């Protein structure tokens, strides 16, 4: 008798959570996936939205652009972080913590504020744009912040602190004694990293890369703040299709959103496969 009232009370206590989750998490996702298999204005069941998404040149380019900018920015971000995070581990603890704190703070600097800062730096009247003009250097003459290179540059900025944050702990898996042992056995520094160091941090590297990739695939605010809906990115297209100024097509948006989710899940899956392979090699 007591346990029954107890159970009933527990069930009652969980009601608010269950309601909120159904209303704002599960149902929207389910409706979105279902709608993506419907015709325009929710009529009938069809694959037409996916056919449109994957054959129309416009949306295919958006997908390609998203994947490319994510790949490039993640690659640059992780390359910088590989060296920067290792350098950090060479410093005394107090200095290390201060630097990490600063780097973490800049990782809050993303989205709209970041886009704005880059306009101040590299926009048409930006600090560096003018500086280089005055110096007569024309490296920036061709540069346009509102182009792909510009956007990629802004993406790199938010990738670097995140990559450092994620990669930094993996270096502690390498023990100093290993380096000494390798050196005693006649290995050069290069050989140490080639055969011991890099394989040890490899899972961390691949994991970090996939998180960076997913992070930039889903990014929306930065590009939107720079040029509104003009960039042809998958996330921007989705936003424009559900809340655009012209006509909204939630069914097509749903199909694109499912595709975006699949690319992200694929990245995670590849990452896991790689990790498993790396670990088998180690054994």
């Amino acid at each position, binding site marked *: 008798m007591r346990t029954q009232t107890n159970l009933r009370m527990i069930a009652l206590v969980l009601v608010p959570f269950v309601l909120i989750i159904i209303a704002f998490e599960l149902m929207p996702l389910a409706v979105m996936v279902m709608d993506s298999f419907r015709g325009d204005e929710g009529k009938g069941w069809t694959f037409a939205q996916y056919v449109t998404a994957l054959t129309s040149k416009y949306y295919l380019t958006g997908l390609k652009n998203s994947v490319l900018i994510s790949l490039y920015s993640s690659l640059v971000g992780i390359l910088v972080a590989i060296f920067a995070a290792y350098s950090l581990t060479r410093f005394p603890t107090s200095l290390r913590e201060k630097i990490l704190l600063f780097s973490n703070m800049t990782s809050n600097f993303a*989205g709209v504020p970041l886009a704005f800062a880059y306009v101040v730096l590299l926009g048409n009247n930006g600090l560096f744009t003018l500086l280089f003009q005055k110096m007569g250097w024309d490296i920036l003459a061709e540069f346009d912040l509102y182009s792909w290179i510009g956007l990629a540059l802004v993406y790199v900025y938010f990738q670097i602190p995140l990559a450092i944050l994620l990669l930094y702990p993996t270096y502690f898996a390498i023990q100093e004694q290993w380096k000494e042992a390798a050196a005693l056995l006649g290995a050069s520094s290069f050989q140490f990293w080639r055969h011991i160091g890099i394989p040890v941090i490899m899972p961390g590297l691949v994991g970090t890369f996939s998180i960076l990739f997913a992070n930039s695939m889903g990014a929306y605010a930065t590009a939107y703040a720079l040029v509104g809906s003009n960039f042809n990115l998958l996330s921007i297209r*989705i936003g424009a299709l559900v809340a655009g100024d012209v006509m909204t097509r939630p069914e097509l948006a749903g199909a694109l959103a499912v595709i975006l*989710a699949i690319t*992200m899940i694929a990245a995670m899956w590849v990452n896991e496969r790689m990790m498993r392979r790396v670990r088998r090699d180690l054994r």
Partner: protein
Amino acid sequence: MKNRLLWHKALTAIVLLYLFIPLLATFLYSISTDWYRTVLPEGYTGKWYGELVSDPRFIDALGRTLFVCIVTILISLVVMVITVFAVTVYLPRLERLLQGIAMLPYAVPPVVTAVGLITIYSQGPFALSGSVWLVIGAYFVAILPYMYQGIRNSMRTVDAISLLDAAELLGASKLKGFWLVVFPNILPGVLVATLLSFSILFGEFVLANLLIGGHYEMIQVYLVRRMEENGHLASSIVVCYFIFISIISAVVLRLGRSAKEGRT
């Protein structure tokens, strides 16, 4: 060996400089009179900050954002503490399910979440579109992973189940045991999760823009619109925002550390 350390120092300095320059430029822009003809600002002034605090549109946007963030976090705090506690103590079999539900928003970018929300709530029986409650609901889900992890981890570190058992053994009811023993012990960890969620929501733009946009102009949406009209004003907002967020993250860090160290 010394040489190498120098190399590490140089590299770190370059990266830090790279991360610092945009911040510095934004700050300079916010205190400059005019800065589009010359490399460095033509003059310095504090008037943009003065203009900012006397701009009713800014005050309104800030107020709206604070309102939405605080309401969301209060609801999340109450609901999540109770839910995580009930599941940990009474329904451990559901723990995996709860974890799955709570971590799902991590894998779904906000622009994807927005699609379903807009479809459901734009018409029909649940026409919430343009209502602040839609944003609050969406925000509840957005901070779910952080709130869940923060609360669950602190319940684990203080071993909530044993604490409750001990309280009951000493004659306290379950409710009393939870409120007087478990809750004060998990408070530091919960506070960290709360502050983290707050800083995430404060910088949230995608949902605020897509779900409610101009109907209910929140701070980030205001910022985007202001960027085109007056850059100096926009940059003074960015500077305030960054200082504010930095203070919160510093508090989070300190609290997080003392919460960890307090129990060894």
